[in-house]
């Protein structure tokens, strides 16, 4: 069982999901079922900063969130993490399994592999790792923003 006591946000690592080449980095703890995250996501990505996405699904607030985070990770294994995240935030009304499969087809991904991966223990652990780091950093809602040094940031 993990220690969930206070700890700084982990530094950005090679296996983080990062996009953009801005000089400044913005670490975003986000829930793929969260309307506030969807509202802010595209603006954050226009800010010129490098965006690092970290998973923070809260099932009781957004029951589909864990499945969506698993799906995004599975798409990421096929090189389409941010395409998947963008598509989920852009169309929040279509997030059931058939809609996920449509995205897989649209992005040219291997559906069998996607289905296998998104429910794997490895992906669940990867998502939980981000979630726990957010808990330890004191995240209480999403989106929660930090700079590369771990200080709270703003949009």
């Amino acid at each position, binding site marked *: 069982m993990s220690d*969930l*006591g206070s700890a700084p946000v982990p530094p950005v690592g090679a296996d983080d999901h990062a996009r953009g080449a801005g000089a400044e980095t913005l670490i975003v703890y986000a829930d793929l079922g969260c309307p506030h995250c969807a509202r802010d996501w595209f603006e954050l990505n226009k800010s010129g900063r490098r965006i690092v996405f970290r998973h923070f699904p*809260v099932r*009781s607030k957004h029951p589909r969130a864990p499945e969506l985070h698993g799906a995004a990770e599975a798409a990421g294994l096929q090189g389409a993490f941010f395409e998947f995240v963008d598509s989920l935030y852009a169309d929040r009304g279509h997030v059931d399994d058939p809609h996920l499969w449509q995205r897989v087809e649209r992005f040219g991904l291997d559906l069998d592999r996607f289905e296998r991966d998104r429910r794997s223990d490895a992906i669940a652990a990867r998502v939980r790792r981000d979630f726990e780091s957010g*808990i330890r*950093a004191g*995240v*209480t809602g999403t989106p929660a923003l930090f700079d590369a040094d771990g200080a709270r940031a703003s949009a």
Partner: protein
Amino acid sequence: MIAVGDKAPDFTLRNQDGDEVSLADYQGRKVLIVFYPMDFSPVCSDQLSIYHEVKPELTEKGVELVGISIDHPWAHKAFQEKLGIDTTLLADFEPKGEVAKAYGSWFDAGFANRTLVLVDEDGSVAWTYESPSPGEFPGANVIFDALG
């Protein structure tokens, strides 16, 4: 707010199913009492949702999680179902806020202040936390810091 080391005042309240629950029922176990303003409010929803996500880790540390607000058991039941959580919610309904007042967790606007009280195995207050305002809640990390 009640002081660390004080004997935690016993109480008997109805839970979300209408069953009576007493603090004494938790004798021999640690219990974290979460006083919160009211069911269905946005901040209370976030708080109980986040704490629900770390319940396995709390259980691992031998801690039972209990929420207390002024709401009626029926409201608690609906709130619990809306969030899909199984945290015990107790109704400090009548006399309104009596338990919150006994713990010094009353906010003078008609509801409990957002406070946490950790009661240890022998019924003594082991740790407390009072939010700066009812609109903010402490992250779960604060609880785990207290548990060590």
